């Protein structure tokens, strides 16, 4: 048995009992990365030296036997969207190729305080815009289950790294499914918390009213542990919620009996891969056998979520990305005057999908189109949120497929942006409504690719989502299967 293949809670035990040291564990993970990352390209930047130094500090704390949390000495990977002091942070963009942040974001600070070891920064779609990690300016990450396939996106590097045991756990961000869809594609657990549950300070912004940070882990218990470590109010993020953080890991032990699961009929539609449909329906049966009541519900505005989302997200992105002008940090393309410097910097610094979205967002906000696109989309956003409010009168959580298909082939959707956007069809509604939602593995298709099911909860009710996920996980062994590399 290799140390790198274990979970946070398994390793926590071993570290506490001094069966292993954080240094041994970190070396095991670094070796695993060295052996596999030439094939997978999960990482943009490796932090070998600082990771070993952090492991050494963790070992000293472990030897001192003082009080500590479950992350002490655990190697964790960060999506390259998290600002890390002294460690290059690129957002997978040429425009930030040489950016070395002078500060740590709040979640990074929290991880460091808990004694976690930061092993590296993972690959992603440039500025988190994409569903396949093919929009990275550096490399395309491969799916560990089949290296001809994408790992999903935008947090594809984080998902592949967890699935391939290149870290013990990881953090991603989710604006329209960017934690959950790659988690489904790579057969891991990924949670997008309630909007405001986790601070966004020091997370490079894509669409500020939708972005949220969350854990990507090997099982549900790890997901609860990692969420607990990063959640909470932060004065540096005025949209973070000033409410207490429950003990998610302790709450897992509560049995979810008597809960009601709602099945939205709009999420089981023709066009979805039959094996995905079948697998999620079987998972619902497993939950039903465990004493959970299943009710059919409706989210009538589901079909309007994708168009509304791509107006709102691109509008916010066009504004957020205006800051990349080549003046104070990042890439600058020398040109004859100021305007040309801005334009050439952005022309050469941004990749095609980022430019496409800036164009869409600028168009949607421009004079004469604002009401037809942006205002209309915001009204539809209200209707989508209302659908969920009404559904949650009848049930405690919703269960759906995470994505309409399993991982697709590299290159399959790059020529048609709209087809790529439709990969997010089951995940984006929850971002528009600000709700928490988790993806966990519930089976495999005939090609051996993982299938994910999504559990959506009420605002701030991550505990119930995790309980239902844990009940399913305990009733099956699907999360235990690993890709062969």
């Amino acid at each position: 048995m290799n140390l790198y293949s274990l979970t946070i809670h398994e390793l926590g035990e071993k570290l506490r009992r001094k069966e292993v040291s954080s240094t041994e564990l970190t070396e095991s993970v670094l070796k695993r990365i060295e052996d596999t990352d030439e094939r997978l390209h999960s990482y943009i930047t490796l932090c070998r030296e600082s990771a070993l130094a952090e492991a050494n500090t963790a070992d000293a704390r472990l030897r001192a036997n003082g009080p500590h949390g479950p992350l002490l000495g655990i190697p964790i990977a960060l999506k390259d969207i998290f600002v890390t002091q002294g460690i290059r942070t690129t957002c997978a963009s040429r425009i930030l190729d040489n950016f070395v942040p002078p500060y740590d974001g709040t979640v990074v600070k929290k991880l460091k305080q808990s004694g976690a070891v930061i092993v590296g920064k993972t690959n992603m779609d440039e500025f988190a815009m994409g569903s396949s990690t093919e929009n990275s300016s550096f490399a395309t990450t491969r799916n560990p289950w089949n290296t001809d396939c994408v790992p999903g996106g935008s947090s594809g590097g984080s998902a592949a790294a967890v699935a391939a045991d290149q870290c013990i756990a990881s953090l991603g961000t989710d604006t329209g499914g960017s934690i959950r869809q790659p988690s489904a594609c790579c057969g891991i657990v990924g949670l997008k918390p309630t909007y405001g549950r986790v601070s966004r300070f020091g997370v490079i912004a894509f669409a500020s009213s939708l972005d949220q940070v969350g854990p990507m882990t090997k099982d549900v218990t790890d997901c609860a542990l990692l969420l607990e470590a990063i959640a909470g109010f932060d004065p540096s993020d005025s949209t973070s919620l000033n409410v207490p953080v429950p003990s998610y890991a302790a709450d897992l032990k509560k049995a979810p009996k008597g809960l009601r699961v709602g099945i939205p009929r709009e999420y089981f539609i023709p066009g979805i891969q039959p094996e995905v449909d079948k697998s999620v329906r079987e998972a619902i049966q497993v939950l039903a056998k465990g004493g959970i009541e299943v009710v059919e519900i409706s989210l009538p505005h589901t079909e309007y979520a994708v168009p509304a989302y791509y107006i709102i997200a691109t509008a916010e992105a066009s504004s957020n990305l205006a800051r990349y002008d080549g003046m104070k940090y990042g890439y600058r393309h020398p040109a004859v005057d100021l305007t040309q410097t801005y334009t050439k910097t952005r022309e050469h610094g941004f990749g095609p999908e980022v430019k496409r979205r800036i164009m869409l967002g600028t168009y949607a906000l421009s004079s004469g189109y604002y009401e037809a696109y942006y205002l209309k989309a915001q009204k539809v956003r209200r209707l989508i949120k209302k659908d969920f409010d009404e559904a949650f009168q009848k049930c405690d959580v919703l269960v759906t497929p995470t994505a309409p298909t399993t991982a697709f082939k590299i290159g399959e959707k790059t020529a048609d942006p709209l087809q790529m956007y439709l990969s997010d069809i089951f995940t984006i509604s929850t971002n528009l409504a600000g709700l928490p939602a988790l993806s966990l593995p519930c089976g495999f298709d005939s090609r051996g690719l993982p299938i994910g099911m999504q559990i959506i909860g009420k605002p701030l009710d991550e505990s119930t989502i995790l309980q239902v996920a844990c009940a399913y996980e305990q009733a099956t062994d699907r999360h235990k299967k690993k890709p062969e590399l």
Partner: protein
Amino acid sequence: MAITKQDVRHVAELARLEFTPEEEDRLTEQLDKILRYMEKLNGLDTEAVEPLAHVGDIVNAFREDRVTNQAAMEPLLANAPDREGNLIKVPKIIE
């Protein structure tokens, strides 16, 4: 057409972006397809619906104007594309 090549040029100028003629053609076609898909929203009557910009109850987050971070001039300046001493050097703005 939901969007023309002239629109694309105008929006590119607003966004401080530039495209080659081939890119302009491809982008016009792609944006047109996406925008026409978005027109699906017009099928919904939203006359009486209030727009929702943000799910949270956003209130002004007032705080005291005081320095909380440590001075870190060198790491900040180290990121500047061009500098002169402790200043960031930028292209000439005023003629």
